């Protein structure tokens, strides 16, 4: 087995993994990026590319974030990212990305105001997220940062609560690597696949970072907070779950209509993602949905108004109407007829519990982007994921500290770790991980999707347990192109992430932000400053309450 020595290992290569590794490399650190997909093929690449900027009224910005987060945000992170960190969107342009300019004043960048923002502070990308992704990749390549591309980081190794290294597996060539590291950054992105097909995420978003972190002994926070964006494609089946905008994509005059023809929401435009997702899900559960399992979004009245048409032009400029056209045809994409929508999983607000340097409870283990949690709290407004990921991962890369005590894992240490992996699976396969992944996705959507209850979650936990038992019986042949192991690894990440979502959702006996319990349908003051933490104890996943003691006064 080849053993490599690095200062910093970054796992993942979306906006966070790239930005963090660039900053660390610029400081002269010896950096390795391990990415199971080709470098830069994360959710960043397929995002709309809209990104907020912290150059305007910071107090107002903080209020917007806390408002969406329903007061369970970690205030130190909010204060740091908005008040103290530099505006990195400028950096993106210096490296070659282009933000759209105003039509009337071509010298000035055009700022827009997505739902939940109190002023225009959001920039739109030329050619959506792919331009941001390619810009960062180009910078990354120019710095000659080492990569293990299309290689799995299988296990983060810890000794005495300090980071030690990473065990990696190239499943295409059946080759193992041991990497000694002074610091490890989890930048694996979200976990949309736990709801597949009801998600707009990339296939690779399987919660790997949450699972790696939990197994290493770090803690997750707010895992019940999963964002469902209200307008996802319902049909055709192959496009199910793809995102076609948040509430403001209805236009100022759009309305929601059920299968009986009743208007269930006259003006979703100014409502939150959470409110409208919930409303649609409840209506569908009542049996008033379309035969395909959606609700009608009727945007046609927008065409009669100037501001309605302006709004349509906005959605066209960020490519959303292309998705509508591919699914429902030209007329729907021009808002000349109604089309079916249903909520779809969009983002995981929960994640690894980190301090203001991105560090977890394990010294030298960091998390950034969608893997980290605390900034968004119980809800995230549009254009904030790329903003938070870019700003915070740059800061983490700038300040990353290598763990104090020198600890070097020997080749034999890595071989022992590998053997534990290889001997864990010596049963008889009753089902393939690909099939079990699909079963899990259906279960999560049904029992821990937009509408949750104690009864549903208990059913889900039982189902997860059965899948776990099937996994324990798996047999893996370690030779040749071993994509079976890739799917199995992803399935296990998905199971652990799903369980964390389930036990957190069970514990929060109220409805707050994106978390809705039909048996506790309102927000409860008692829960206002409390977070739920998930950690591994023995081989059990446990949830417990953590008081959020970061008091803040918006009027300061």
């Amino acid at each position: 087995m080849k053993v490599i020595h690095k200062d910093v290992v970054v796992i993942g290569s979306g906006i966070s993994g790239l930005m963090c590794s660039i900053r660390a490399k610029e400081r002269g650190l010896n950096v390795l990026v391990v990415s199971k997909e080709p470098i830069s093929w994360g959710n960043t690449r397929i995002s709309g590319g809209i990104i907020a900027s912290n150059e305007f009224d910071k107090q107002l910005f903080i209020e917007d974030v806390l408002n969406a987060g329903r007061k369970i945000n970690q205030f130190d992170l909010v204060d740091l990212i908005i008040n103290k960190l530099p505006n990195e969107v400028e950096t993106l342009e210096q490296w070659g990305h282009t933000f759209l300019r105003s039509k009337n004043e071509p010298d000035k960048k055009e700022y827009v105001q997505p739902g939940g923002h109190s002023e225009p502070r959001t920039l739109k990308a030329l050619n959506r997220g792919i331009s941001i992704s390619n810009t960062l990749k180009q910078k990354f390549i120019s710095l000659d940062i080492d990569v293990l591309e299309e290689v799995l980081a299988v296990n983060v190794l810890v000794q005495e609560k300090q980071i030690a290294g990473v065990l990696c597996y190239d499943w295409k060539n059946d080759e193992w690597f041991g990497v000694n590291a002074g610091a490890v950054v989890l930048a694996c992105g979200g976990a949309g696949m736990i709801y597949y097909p009801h998600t707009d995420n990339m296939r690779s978003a399987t919660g790997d970072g949450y699972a790696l972190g939990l197994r290493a002994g770090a803690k997750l926070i707010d895992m019940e907070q999963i964002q469902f964006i209200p307008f996802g494609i319902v049909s055709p089946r192959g496009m199910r779950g793809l995102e076609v905008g948040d509430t403001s994509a209805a236009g100022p005059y759009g309305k929601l209509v059920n299968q009986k023809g009743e208007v269930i929401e006259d003006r979703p435009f100014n409502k939150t993602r959470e409110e409208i997702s919930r409303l649609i899900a409840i209506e569908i559960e009542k049996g008033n949905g379309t035969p395909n399992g959606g609700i009608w979004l009727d945007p046609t009245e927008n065409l009669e108004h100037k501001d309605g048409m302006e709004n349509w032009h906005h959605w066209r400029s960020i490519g959303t109407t292309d998705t509508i056209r591919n699914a429902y045809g030209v007329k729907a994409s021009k808002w000349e007829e109604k089309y079916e929508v249903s909520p779809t999983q969009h983002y995981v607000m929960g994640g690894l519990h980190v301090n203001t340097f991105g560090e977890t409870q394990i010294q030298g283990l960091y998390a950034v982007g969608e893997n980290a949690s605390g900034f968004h709290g119980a809800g995230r407004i549009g254009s904030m994921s790329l903003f938070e990921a870019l700003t915070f991962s740059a800061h983490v890369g700038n300040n990353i500290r290598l763990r104090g005590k020198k600890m070097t894992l020997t080749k034999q240490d890595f071989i022992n770790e590998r053997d534990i992996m290889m001997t864990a699976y010596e049963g008889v396969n009753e089902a393939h991980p690909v099939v079990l992944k699909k079963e899990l996705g259906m279960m999560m959507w049904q029992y821990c999707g937009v509408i949750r209850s104690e009864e549903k979650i208990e059913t889900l936990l039982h189902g997860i347990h059965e899948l776990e038992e099937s996994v324990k019986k798996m047999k893996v042949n370690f030779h040749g192109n071993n994509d079976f192991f890739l799917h199995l690894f992803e399935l296990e990440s998905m199971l652990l992430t799903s369980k964390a979502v389930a036990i957190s959702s069970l514990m929060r006996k109220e409805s707050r932000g994106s978390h809705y319990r039909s048996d506790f349908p309102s927000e409860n003051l008692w829960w206002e400053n409390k977070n739920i933490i998930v950690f591994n104890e023995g081989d059990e996943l446990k949830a417990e309450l953590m008081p959020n003691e970061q008091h803040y006064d918006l009027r300061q």
Partner: protein
Amino acid sequence: MNNITIYVSRTTSDKENKFVSYEINTGHEEATVLEALQTIQEEIDPTLAFRYGCRFKQCGLCAMKIDGRPLMACMTKIKDGMTIEPLDKIPIEKDVIVERKFILEKTRTYKLYRENPFREKTAEINLPYEILNRCTDCQSCLSLCSNFHIEKMDEFAGPLFFVKLAQLQFHPLNETDYTQKAEEMGVEKCADCTCRCPYGIPIKKLAIEPFINKLKEIKE
């Protein structure tokens, strides 16, 4: 119901690719090639390997040869009798998956990146740049290029890399001329380029001719 038979190229234990026929029920008329492959994977043979990412043509991972043409599986309707193969010209990893790692390596060796940050100013976005910027690295153009040979990339880079170079050349703030580099990468071999891009980038017009024309000017 929609029962169809399709032919998918599979890698055998001898590391050769051979067509295997599958009879599937697509469930609905709008089904795509990607859905058909997923149906095979989930219901008939889970060992079938294929790449995909976003399901709406944004990521560029699912390009494959469908009825003889490179297309994106997620946006191509499946039809009875279709053949589905890996892209030509690029080494096969397994079934319909071809290698990708060489793209990053070659981008590094050709130095297809800006070496200095821009001076601060703004410029209007030009249309060629906007169109070139749509490239998703799907590799379709490489599979169609008669000059491209993966083992001879030191002599000839291939259309994907000319697109990358043109992105640098046409960037609204660019002040460097990359024509010399284009010559070194073998752009002059492409005067008769017939590559087609699934994203509609006119590769010859925007990524080849501008360099060839400039080289002619220099040489005259």
